[in-house]
C-alpha cells in the first residue's frame, strides 16, 4: 500500500491540473466563447478574437483585466466585445495604466506612489494633444537612449491608437446603429452609382443620390485609416492580404457589385443585438456566421480554434503549479520520508514536464516553426530541455537532486517567460532574416540547449556550495556524485554551445556575408564557449577540483544570463530582437546573488560545515546518497 501512495498522490494532482485545462463550458447567456473563436487577421497571422482581446488588453494594462462601473472585467473577450460593439461603454472603463509619475503629472495632481494608475479613454481625452506632442518629441530620440518617461508616453500613445483602431474594427465607432447604417448603405449604392455615371457623362443627375454615395464613400475611406485588425474574410480575393479585409475595404468594395458582403452584415447584426441586449439574437448570429465560415473557409478555422483552446488551457501556468508542488515535496524528501516524497516529486515533475511538452508542441503547430523563434519561446524551451536533463539525471542518481533542479529551473524559466509574454504576440510572425526553419532548428535550438545545460550545471553548483557550507548532509559520496553531475552537464553544455555557435557563424555567412562579425549576441555565445573551455581545461589540469568546479559553474550562470538577456539590452548589433529595460533590475540582482554564492563557495574547505561533520559522523541519520540506491 505504501508503495502506491506516491502514485495515487501524483496522479490526483496531475489529473486535477489537467482538468483545469479542459475546454470551457458554454455558459448560459451571451455566447462569449462563440465570439472568442471567430477568426481575425492581425499582424500577418490569423488568430481568434480571444487572442486579439488578450494581446490588446495586456498591452494597455499589465494584467489584461480592468474595472468598469466598479466591476472587474476578467475575460478579455468580454472586454473586446465592449470595445468593438459598445465603444461608449468601454470609453468609461479604466483601461489604460500608467506607472511613471511624470506622466501621471501631465494629467493632474495624483501621487502614483509607484503603483499603476488607471485611466479611461474619456479621462485622457482632454490631454490627447499633449500626449501626441510629447510622443512626437520622444520619437526623435534614438530608441536605445530614451528615458522611462519617453518610453512610457510612447507606450500610452500607442495604446490609445490601438484602442481607436479596435473600436473601428468591425464598425465605425461613432455610428449609433451600425447594423442599420450598412443596410441603409446597401440601399443607397445602386441609385448612387447611377447618379455618378450620369454626372460624369454630363447628363442631369439626382443630386441627393449623388451626395449620399459620396458621403458614404468618404466616410468609409476615412474609416480605412484605422486599419489594424482585418475581420472580414474574402476568399474570392486571396491575393489581397491573404484574403482578409478591413470592414471599410469590404464596404468600399461593395460599391461595384452593389452588395455588402455577408460577414459585414453578420457583424452588423451582432452589433445591433449586443447593443440592444438581445442575447438570443446575438447567439444566433454568432452561430450563423460560424456556419458560414465552416462552409467558405474551413481550412483557415483549425488554427484559431486550437489557439482559443490553448489560450484557455494555459498549459505553462499549470505546469508552473506542478513544478512548485514538486519542488516542495522534493526538498522535504531530503528531510523525511525520502522514498515516498521523493517518488511523488518525480511523478509530479514528469507530469509537469508532459504538460510543458504539450504546450510546446501546440505552439509549434500554431506557428509552424521549430520551438525557438523569439525570446519568449527560448525561455519555454530552455526550461523544457533542462527539466528533461534533470529527469534523466534523477533516473541515474535517484537522490532527489534531479527533482529539485528540474522543479526550480522549470518554475523559474516559465515565470520569466510569463513576464516576457507581456511584450506582444508570442506567436508573432518571424521577420525575413529568421525565415529559415533549418537554421532555427539547429543553431537556435542548440544555443538554447547550451543555456539549459549551463543553468543546470550552475544550479547543481549552488546546491553543492549551500549544502556543503551550511548543512551536515554533505558526505563524500554526495559531493562526489554532485561533482560528476556537474562535469557531465558542463561537457554537454560545451558540446551544444560550441557547435551551435559555429552553426550560427555559418548561418551568418550565408545571410550577412561574414562568418563572424563581433556582434553582441555572437560575442555572448563566444563568452559561454570560452568559459566552458576554461572550466574543462582547469579541471583537466587539476587547478579546479570539485569545489572549484562548483564555483566556476555558478559563474557560468552569470555568463549565460548576460548572454541571453544582457545583449538585448545593449540595443546594438544585428541581434537586438527584444529590448526590455524592465528586466535590467532583476538581471542585476541575479548577478549579485550568484557572486555572493561564489564568494561563499570560496570559503576555505575546512570551515565547511558539511566537511567538518564528516569526520564526526559514524551512523548517518540522514539518508546516505550513494550511487544507485537510496538507503534509509
Amino acid at each position, binding site marked *: 500500500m505504501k508503495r502506491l501512495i506516491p502514485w495515487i498522490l501524483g496522479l490526483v494532482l496531475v489529473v486535477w491540473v489537467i482538468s483545469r485545462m479542459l475546454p470551457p463550458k458554454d455558459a448560459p447567456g451571451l455566447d462569449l466563447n462563440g465570439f472568442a473563436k471567430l477568426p481575425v*487577421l*492581425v*499582424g*500577418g*497571422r490569423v488568430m481568434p478574437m480571444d487572442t486579439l482581446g488578450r494581446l490588446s488588453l495586456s498591452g494597455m494594462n499589465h494584467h489584461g483585466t480592468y474595472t468598469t462601473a466598479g466591476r472587474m472585467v476578467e475575460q478579455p473577450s468580454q472586454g473586446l466585445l465592449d470595445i468593438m460593439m459598445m465603444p461608449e461603454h468601454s470609453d468609461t472603463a479604466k483601461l489604460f495604466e500608467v506607472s511613471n509619475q511624470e506622466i501621471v503629472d501631465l494629467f493632474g495632481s495624483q501621487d502614483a506612489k509607484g503603483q499603476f494608475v488607471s485611466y479611461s479613454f474619456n479621462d485622457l481625452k482632454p490631454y490627447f494633444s499633449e500626449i501626441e506632442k510629447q510622443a512626437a518629441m520622444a520619437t526623435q530620440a534614438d530608441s*536605445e537612449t530614451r528615458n522611462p518617461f519617453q518610453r512610457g508616453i510612447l507606450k500610452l500613445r500607442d495604446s490609445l491608437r490601438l484602442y481607436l483602431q479596435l473600436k473601428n474594427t468591425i464598425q465605425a465607432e461613432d455610428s449609433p446603429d451600425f447594423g442599420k447604417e450598412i443596410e441603409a448603405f446597401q440601399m443607397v449604392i445602386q441609385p448612387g452609382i447611377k447618379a455618378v455615371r450620369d454626372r460624369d457623362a454630363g447628363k442631369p443627375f439626382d443630386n441627393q443620390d449623388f451626395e449620399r454615395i459620396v458621403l458614404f464613400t468618404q466616410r468609409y475611406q476615412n474609416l480605412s485609416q484605422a*486599419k*489594424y485588425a*482585418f475581420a472580414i474574410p474574402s476568399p474570392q480575393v486571396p491575393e489581397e*492580404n*491573404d484574403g*482578409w479585409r*478591413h470592414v471599410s475595404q469590404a464596404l468600399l468594395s461593395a460599391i461595384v457589385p452593389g452588395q455588402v458582403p455577408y460577414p459585414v452584415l453578420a457583424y452588423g447584426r451582432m452589433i445591433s443585438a449586443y447593443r440592444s441586449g438581445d442575447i438570443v439574437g446575438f447567439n444566433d448570429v454568432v452561430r450563423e456566421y460560424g456556419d458560414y465560415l465552416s462552409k467558405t473557409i474551413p481550412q483557415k478555422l483549425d488554427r484559431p480554434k486550437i489557439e482559443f483552446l490553448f489560450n484557455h488551457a494555459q498549459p505553462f501556468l499549470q505546469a508552473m503549479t506542478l513544478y512548485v508542488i514538486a519542488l516542495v515535496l522534493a526538498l522535504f524528501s531530503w528531510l523525511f520520508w525520502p522514498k515516498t516524497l521523493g517518488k511523488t516529486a518525480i511523478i509530479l515533475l514528469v507530469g509537469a514536464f508532459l504538460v510543458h511538452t504539450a504546450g510546446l508542441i501546440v505552439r509549434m503547430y500554431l506557428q509552424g516553426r521549430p520551438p525557438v523563434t523569439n525570446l519568449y519561446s527560448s525561455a519555454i524551451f530552455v526550461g523544457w530541455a533542462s527539466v528533461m536533463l534533470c529527469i534523466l539525471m534523477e533516473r*541515474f542518481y535517484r537522490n532527489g537532486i534531479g527533482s529539485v533542479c528540474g522543479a526550480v529551473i522549470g518554475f523559474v524559466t516559465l515565470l520569466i517567460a510569463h513576464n516576457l509574454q507581456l511584450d506582444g504576440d508570442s506567436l*508573432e*510572425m518571424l*521577420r*525575413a*532574416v529568421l*525565415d*529559415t526553419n533549418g*537554421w532555427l532548428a539547429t543553431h537556435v535550438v542548440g544555443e538554447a540547449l547550451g543555456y539549459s545545460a549551463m543553468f543546470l550545471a550552475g544550479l547543481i553548483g549552488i546546491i553543492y556550495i549551500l549544502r556543503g557550507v551550511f548543512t551536515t548532509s554533505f558526505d563524500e559520496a554526495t559531493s562526489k556524485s554532485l561533482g560528476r553531475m556537474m562535469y*557531465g552537464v558542463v*561537457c*554537454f553544455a*560545451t*558540446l551544444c554551445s*560550441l*557547435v551551435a555557435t*559555429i552553426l550560427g*557563424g*555559418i548561418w551568418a*555567412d*550565408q*545571410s*550577412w*556575408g*561574414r*562568418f*563572424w*562579425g*563581433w*556582434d553582441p549576441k555572437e*560575442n555572448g555565445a563566444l*563568452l559561454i564557449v*570560452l*568559459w566552458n*573551455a*576554461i572550466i574543462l*581545461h582547469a579541471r*583537466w*589540469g587539476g*587547478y579546479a577540483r570539485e569545489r572549484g568546479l562548483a564555483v566556476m559553474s555558478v559563474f557560468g550562470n552569470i555568463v549565460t544570463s548576460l548572454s541571453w538577456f544582457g*545583449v538585448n539590452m*545593449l*540595443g*546594438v*548589433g544585428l541581434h537586438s530582437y527584444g529590448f526590455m529595460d524592465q528586466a535590467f533590475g532583476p538581471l542585476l540582482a541575479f548577478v549579485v546573488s550568484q557572486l555572493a554564492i561564489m564568494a561563499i563557495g570560496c570559503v576555505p574547505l575546512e570551515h565547511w560545515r558539511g566537511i567538518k561533520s564528516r569526520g564526526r559522523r559514524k551512523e548517518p541519520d540522514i539518508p546516505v546518497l550513494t*550511487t*544507485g540506491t537510496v538507503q534509509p
Partner: protein
Amino acid sequence: MSKIVQWLKPFTSLKLTIFCLGCAMVLVFLGTIDQVNIGVYEAENRYFKSFFLFFTPPHMDLRIPWFPGGYIVGSLLLVNLVAAHVARFRLSLKKIGIVLLHSGLILLLVGQLFADLFVDLESQLRLDQGETKNYSESFYFDELAVIDTTGADSDLVISIPASRLPKGSKIDLPVDGLRIVINDYYPNSALISPSQLPQPGYPHLPVGPMAVAVQLEKTYKQNERNLPAADFSVFKKDELIGSWRLAAGFPRPINFQAGGKKYEAVLRPKRFYKPFAITLIQFRHDRYAGTDIAKNFSSRIRLLDPSRHEDRESLIFMNNPLRYRGFTFYQAGFDNNDQTTVLQVAQNPSWLVPYISCALIVIGMLLQFGMHLVSFVKRRVIA
C-alpha cells in the same frame, strides 16, 4: 625530435591556455560594452584586430598599452594549441576525439585570420530597378579618383584613398607628373544650402551652385555613412592647373586639362570594378498581410560576363547568396521605397573552411564526450 619538444615546452602549458582564454573573455566583454559608444566596426578594430588595448591619460598625447589585444591573444592560443599537440599528444585512439576537435579549431582560427585579410574589400552594390553596374562601392572607405579620360575606349583611374587626404597633404600621382595638394578636408560632412549657415563666416566649402559642405562629427552608427569633403589644388610640374572643392555626398565630377590630356576628378565611395556587370531586374519586399513586417527580401538580377560567355538571371534572397568568381553577393538592404536594392559583396576564398572545421569539431566532440559517456554508463551499470 626531442630538441623540438624542448623548444616548444613553455608553449605547451595548460596555464597558458587558461590565461589566454581568460584574456579572450575580457576582450570580448569589454569590446561588446564599448560597441554602444563606438559602433561595431571601430570596436572590432580596437579590441580584436589590434596587438594591445591602449589608454590615453588625460591631457596627454600618449597611448599606453595596458592589455594584450586580439592578435596577441589569438596567436598565443594558436601557438599553444599547435605546440601542445606536437609535443605531448601521442596519436592514440583514446585521444582521437580531442585531436580532431583541436584540429578543427586550429583550422577555424587560421581560416578566419586569412578571411580577415579580405574584410577591407567588403563592399556594397546599390542598384535601382533597371540599373546596371560593373563596380561595387565600399561602405567605409572613400577615394579621390582622378580619371584620365583622354582615351577613346578606356579610362585610366587613379584612386587615392581618403586616408591620404588630411589637410595639408601633398600627393604625387604615379602618372603624368601630377601633384595634388589638399587645402582643407572634412572626414564627414553634410550638404546644406548657403542660406542655412548659422552665421556668414561659418567654416564651409562651396561645392555647387546652391550647396555648401559643413563639417560633421564622424559617425559610428551602423547604417550611417561618413561623407568626406575636400578642397584641393592640382599642380603639374609646379604649375597650378586649378583648385576645386568636392564632396562625397554630391559626386559630380570636375573636369580639367593638363599636358594635352583630359581629366575628371571626383570624391566618392571607393569603387571596386569587376570584370562583369549586374543588372537589377526587380527587388521585392514581401510583407505579411496587413502589416509592415517583412516576410522576405529578394532581388532578381541579371549577370553579364562576356569574357566567360555568361548571361543569366539569378535570384538573391535572404539566406541565399549568389557566388560567382570568388565574390559572394548577399541581400543586405534596400532603399528608396523598395525601388533600390543594396547587395553586400564579399570576397572570401576560404569560405569553405568554417564548414570543414565545424564537421571536424562536431565529430571530435562527439567522439570525446561519447567515450566518456559510454564509460560512465558502464560504471553505473556495474555498480
